[in-house]
């Protein structure tokens, strides 16, 4: 096993301690929840759109250092991008976490701090939780079915 310090890069620890764009958003155009039933991690992502462009993006919720830092760096990576560009970045990010090769050249450099997650397969879901929520928000996916609370 690689050193856990490979996983917990200083940038990740910094974004965990002080996540960027960590706030609920008033008047958002889109929102979606990222929920991992295995661990209970729960994040919400909000987007304000200007045409096809992400004018503002924020998140809050509770999660581990990996999921929180990933969400934080996600917001700073997709801010101002088009929907298609944002999805492309996620695709590249996902490839880096699950693939074997070097990160793609068009992956924003700051996301490379998550390359170490690849060595911790159990943590890939943590790193992608907010990204899946972002994608759902962009695609406006319906929420999951649940047992009624009053049942």
């Amino acid at each position, binding site marked *: 096993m690689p050193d856990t310090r490979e996983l917990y890069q200083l940038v990740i620890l910094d974004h965990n301690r002080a996540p960027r764009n960590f706030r609920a958003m008033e008047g958002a155009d889109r929102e979606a929840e990222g929920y991992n039933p*295995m661990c*209970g991690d729960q994040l919400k992502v909000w987007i304000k759109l200007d045409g096809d462009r992400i004018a503002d993006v924020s998140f809050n919720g*509770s*999660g581990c*250092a990996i999921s*929180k830092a990933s969400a934080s760096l996600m917001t700073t990576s997709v801010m101002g991008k088009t929907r298609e560009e944002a999805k492309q970045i996620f695709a590249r990010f996902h490839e880096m976490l699950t693939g074997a090769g070097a990160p793609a050249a068009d992956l924003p450099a700051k996301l490379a701090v998550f390359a170490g997650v690849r060595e911790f397969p*159990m*943590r890939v879901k943590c790193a992608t939780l907010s990204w899946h929520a972002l994608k759902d928000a962009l695609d406006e996916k319906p929420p999951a079915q649940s*047992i009624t609370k009053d*049942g």
Partner: protein
Amino acid sequence: MTVSSTRRASATATPAPVLDVAKLRREFPVLRTRVHGKPLVYFDNGATSQKPRAVVEAEADFALLESANVHRGVHWLSHHASERYDRARDELRAFVGAGDSAEIIFTSGTTAAINLVAQSFARPRLQPGDEILLTEMEHHSNIVPWQLVARATGARIRVIPVTDDGELDLDRLDQVLTSRTRVVALTHVSNVLGTVNPVRLIADRAHELGAVVLVDGAQAVPHIPVNVRALGADFYAASAHKMFGPTGVGVLYGRADLLEAMPPWQGGGGMIQRVTFEDTSFAPLPDRFEAGTPPIAQAIGMGAAVQWMRSLDWNAVEAHEGDLLAYATRRLGEVPGVQVLGRARNRVSVVSFVMDAVHPHDLGTVLDSQGVAVRAGHHCAQPLMQRFGVPATVRASFALYNTRSEIDVLIDGLHQVRTIFA
């Protein structure tokens, strides 16, 4: 230590018998495994325990040398397999203190056992306005089956709250246990806090009001001797794999008069007397509730696990586990920022904790890098997590083969977590 003194009070009157842990550990080859180059420290016994050689060999010997279906064949091997299977059932009867082995149903595990009672006992009986009483510390598998029944019948779920100490709030019992209560379903031991619940007291009150009591024993059986009649349990559910046995098999104890009155849950071979397209009559207990070919080798393995457990000195086991719990609680208290959840007066060797500003998952990953296997998450007890205002915890659950020096490795790991996240 107060955490262990209540339960072990009787053991302190005479010198506590000593458990030969080194000898015990040799029966569990996995405990010599190295993980990431470090000796495995297995503290996830609450999820599943390790299995001793005797159990795996019983299962393997049956599969390799004695495989045959049960209750079907006239041939010798089938007869022999049936005898082995019946003997395993009788081991389980003695293990839980039941009067008759017809009261012992083999299931795929605790979850299936609870669902069987929910669907076969509760669902046909409950009416709108009836109440099912659970506790705030239940595992999801003792919540969701009842929600399904409540939704189908119009019955209502009520809950015994948990105190800050992690005990059931008995002062509130009269408010939630009423003449409308039909079923009380509670855990014997909390899988998160280790709390041992006062089952007898609650069962007596429930019975006065005409309610039936199901006890989830999954977390109790590896730690404390169980007697369903002394507990006042009408139903008692447990899994083999948490008590040194195989996965895929568990047991439901049910009072014979209750089981007799219940319709079958699943239909199939083995549970009938006579089948025509017009009508089918069902087999007597316990076969009526065991449709299809049961997990035969696993049931025999569960019987072997019971035999193995019965060979131990349980005063010595309880003294050893009490020492582990007291030692772990003390050492955890020395780590800055660590907070242990619950401090019930009566509990087994399970401890849940959180650390300031460090998410349990990150803690779990760093501990794993040190070879320490703990559970990080909600432990399938989300309502209890909400009760304590935490999204998740780290749980270290100790079994009789764990040691103080393994706890030292855990504590060293926690100090390492602190340096990373400082």
